[in-house]
């Protein structure tokens, strides 16, 4: 079994957080996971998904479940 834990992705709606775009960072993590560990059984996001608990950025989360 292989799985990828992600945590504290701290996605914000628009703009930067401490000079970084967290959604872009998360997209890169997802791309790397798909490219190098596409055989993983699941990704588990252990909290800190958004920075200010907004609804909208959650819909923008690029991770999708794989069968």
């Amino acid at each position, binding site marked *: 079994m292989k799985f990828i834990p992600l945590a504290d992705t701290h996605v914000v709606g628009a703009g930067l957080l401490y000079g970084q775009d967290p959604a872009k960072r998360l997209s890169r993590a997802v791309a790397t996971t798909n490219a*190098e560990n596409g055989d993983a059984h699941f990704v588990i996001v252990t909290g800190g998904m958004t920075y200010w608990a907004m609804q909208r950025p959650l819909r923008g989360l690029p991770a999708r479940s794989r069968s």
Partner: protein
Amino acid sequence: MKFVHISDIHLTCPGERMAGLDPHRRFAQALDEVRGKHQDADRIIITGDLTHWGEPDAYAALNDALVDLPCPVRLLVGNHDNRANFLSAFPDHPRDEHGYINYAEDLDGTRLIYLDTTAPRTHAGHFGVDRIQWLEAQLQDCTHARLFMHHNVMTLSQPAEDKIALVSADRPAFADLLKRHQSKIDYLHFGHIHAICTGTYCGIPFASVRSTGNQSLPDFTETELLHGGPLAPSFALIEVGGDGTVIHDIPFTWDGPVFSSGTGWDDWAKPVAAE
């Protein structure tokens, strides 16, 4: 007990650089961090690749650097080291009856066991029957043990990196020994891979640390080449208490911005934009 775990310092003859950086400066920065923030450490343990090419001058530089430290230092050799040159620079250093740099000490009821997993002219780890017998004897008459070594004794799903793990011929006996003494071995600590990797092996938790020089990039398909780059270094701070072990990653070269915040709920409130 508190241990500073440093690894893969790869010292050169002073003045020579190693893969684009000055390893002496990096090592000095790490020791300064220990002097400044970890005066309560009980041991500084450096798990091998003390030098990059094993020259006497590199070991002399290591000897010179180990001054004004808050606690004893324990040195282990790695694949880049030269055992004879190491022993010339540290003539009183303990070794086992076969001449390997295997030694141990008891601290707070735990036997700290320092292993020599090297063999000449190979980057892979070796731990044959003579060394297994020494380790077996050390484990037999203690109640708690913690093992420090340079090489990973298990494979790590990285085909190229795994070529320089403990050689496959020596793995079964090592694993068998770990399983037989699993209940008294609290942890395996190693370096070599220039990356942080944690897990369990034979029912025993393990943790590696980064190098103070360059880091490796994990690769799960590459079969020939070891990939690495100038990622930030760190060392580990290992705190051992009655309830278990906590390992912190210490980024001792960080000199960039530092953000500070309180821990109260409102300290993280979303700023209200000015209309």
